């Protein structure tokens, strides 16, 4: 592996309303790496994921984020997506009246246009969609259904992985994509992430449980407590947390 940084977070502070949530995050993710962020509820894991994607409900109050050398915080959510940042949503949104296939093609073409490529031909797109749907083991009928409308929790998460597989992001951020998933769906999420495990990509996986990490072995594990990274380690740290829980950090945080 080369040590080209994809994401460099320095002393990142963010708040929601008047409540500070992130209180000085430092994290560097290099090309080819899979990082897991773990931590108790309310530690700021999802905030970090959403701040990186550009959600406007959060205000960054300090620090910097560089993505492939660029100031990430300066970009709009759509510019980040076009540059290859992908957030797999914890709660994917239903969009009645827009078919999954139309939505995916519109998203893909927005990325292609940004790269200076022509829009994808309709037939080529259908071929790509068919192949990727097979990869995430989704029934072809979902391509004509409205985005996430009436999908089960697992189907929505699978659909997130389908979007990731089609857009092939440079940096994939998974926000508790594993919550509420059965074993089959977990395996598919992990396969989707592992497909991005090449020198051109990096993955940041936010999770509460170690379960997903059985399928998706992270290179680095960080424990987020009270808006800061309290400890970093390798995959062994995840196992340790599974066994002992977050009690130790809770005590440290409240001390």
């Amino acid at each position, binding site marked *: 592996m080369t040590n080209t940084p994809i994401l460099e977070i320095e002393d990142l502070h963010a708040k929601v309303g008047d409540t500070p949530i992130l209180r000085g995050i430092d994290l560097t993710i290099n090309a080819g790496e899979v990082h897991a962020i773990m931590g108790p509820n309310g530690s700021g894991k999802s905030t970090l994921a959403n701040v990186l994607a*550009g959600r*406007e409900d959060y205000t960054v109050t300090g620090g910097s984020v560089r993505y492939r050398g660029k100031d990430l915080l300066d970009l*709009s959510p759509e510019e980040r997506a076009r540059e290859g940042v992908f957030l797999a949503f914890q709660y994917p949104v239903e969009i009645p009246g827009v078919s999954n296939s139309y*939505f995916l093609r519109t998203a893909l073409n*927005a990325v292609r246009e*940004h790269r200076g490529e022509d829009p994808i031909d309709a037939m080529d797109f259908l071929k790509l969609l068919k192949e990727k749907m097979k990869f995430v083991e989704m029934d072809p009928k979902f391509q004509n259904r409205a985005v996430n409308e009436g999908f089960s929790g697992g189907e929505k998460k699978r659909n997130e992985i389908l979007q990731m597989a089609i857009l092939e992001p440079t940096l994939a951020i998974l926000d508790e994509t594993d919550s509420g998933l059965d074993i089959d769906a977990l395996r598919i999420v992990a396969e989707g992430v592992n497909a991005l495990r090449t020198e051109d990509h990096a993955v940041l996986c936010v999770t509460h449980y170690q379960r997903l990490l059985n399928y998706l072995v992270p290179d680095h594990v960080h424990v987020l407590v009270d808006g800061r990274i309290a400890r970093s380690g390798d995959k062994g740290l995840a196992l340790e947390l599974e066994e002992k829980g977050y009690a130790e950090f809770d005590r440290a945080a409240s001390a």
Partner: protein
Amino acid sequence: MSSQMDHQAAQQASAALPPAPDNLREQALQEFASAGFPTTSLEDWKYTNLREIADANLPLAEDAAIDGATRERLAEAIGDGAGLAFVNGHSVEIAAKSADGARLATVAHCLEHEPERIAAALRATGVIERSSLVALNSAFLGAGAVIDVPDDTVVETPIHLVYAARVSAAAASHVRNLITVGRNSRVTVVEHYLGLDDSRYWTNTATDAVLGDGARLSHCKIQCESGQAHHTADISVVQGADSQLHSLSIALGSRLCRNDIRSFFSAPGGHCSLDGLYMVDGQQHVDHHTSVDHAAPHCSSTELYKGILGGSATGVFNGKVLVRNQGQQTDAHQLNKNLLLSDAATINTKPQLEIFADDVKCSHGATTGRLDEDAIFFLRARAIDEPAARRLLTRAFANEIVGRIDVAGLRERVEETVDARLAAMIGSEENK
């Protein structure tokens, strides 16, 4: 024409038209003279003010010269269907398919040659109470179309009635469509109202339809009048046993638009669906009043009206469902959903359920809101820029109605018109 209308002038104007049967015009004129224009003191007209038209004393619109481009637009509206075209209420020769199975003629032609067809259609809808504007329309009966479908006939080709307007000075046209669908017959009728430029005029249209037992009418009205126009319409349908009415109203144009859509179940087993989409911005005003009269048992009605309002536009939806004593086993559902694109846009929505039978299923609902910001962020996080995300979500909202147009070629054309309208509406919100 004020409410103390110049009776003599009106009589003279209508005297210039071909004679109508049974003193119809004179009676209607008297009826209108005693009622006058609807005013906002009437509950049904609380939010829609016709004073400007009432005070304007508009003359009848005159025949306009038809150039090639106009002829092309009329032909385009008919597409590969059958139909008739009119400019300012005057018939224009346009080559179109024949409506196999149906008899299609202008009102003017029928007045001259088959007045009984007109009298019969008008008698049948007499059971429905309508506004005084319909009386005024009858007082000037002369423009419009008469469609008769005999019993046991399926008319495959949709029939388009295209009413275009272009006037040099403000004027009114009163359009009447009379549709009779025989027993176990089926027909699709599309009414188009087109402004050819931004001239000021008033279209006052009324449609009377009578459905025999087991008959089915798909009726689609597309209103794209000039932005300066006033448009008032009354569609009244009497439904026989086991008949079906599918009514769609798409209202995009005109400064003021009022649509009254009424169905009357005269016998058991009938069904009607009343659906609509209105899109207004700037200073536009749009008002839909629907009324379903469950005067017979075992009938069902569904309604879905959706509105998109921007600028300082105002909208009204009033859905009346009357279930009479004899209307047992009625199944009636109604929903009105509105999307507001600006702070200044307003909508007044009101269900009006009057239920006298005790064994019925009735429901109603209304929602008014903005675009879902979570959905916008979701689309932006998928590389779609914000204006495109707003367009996509708004179009999806509209498509639930547009998607119900089942006339080949027409749905695509309406989709294009709706898209262009949306782009303009969203664009103008962004430039504020």
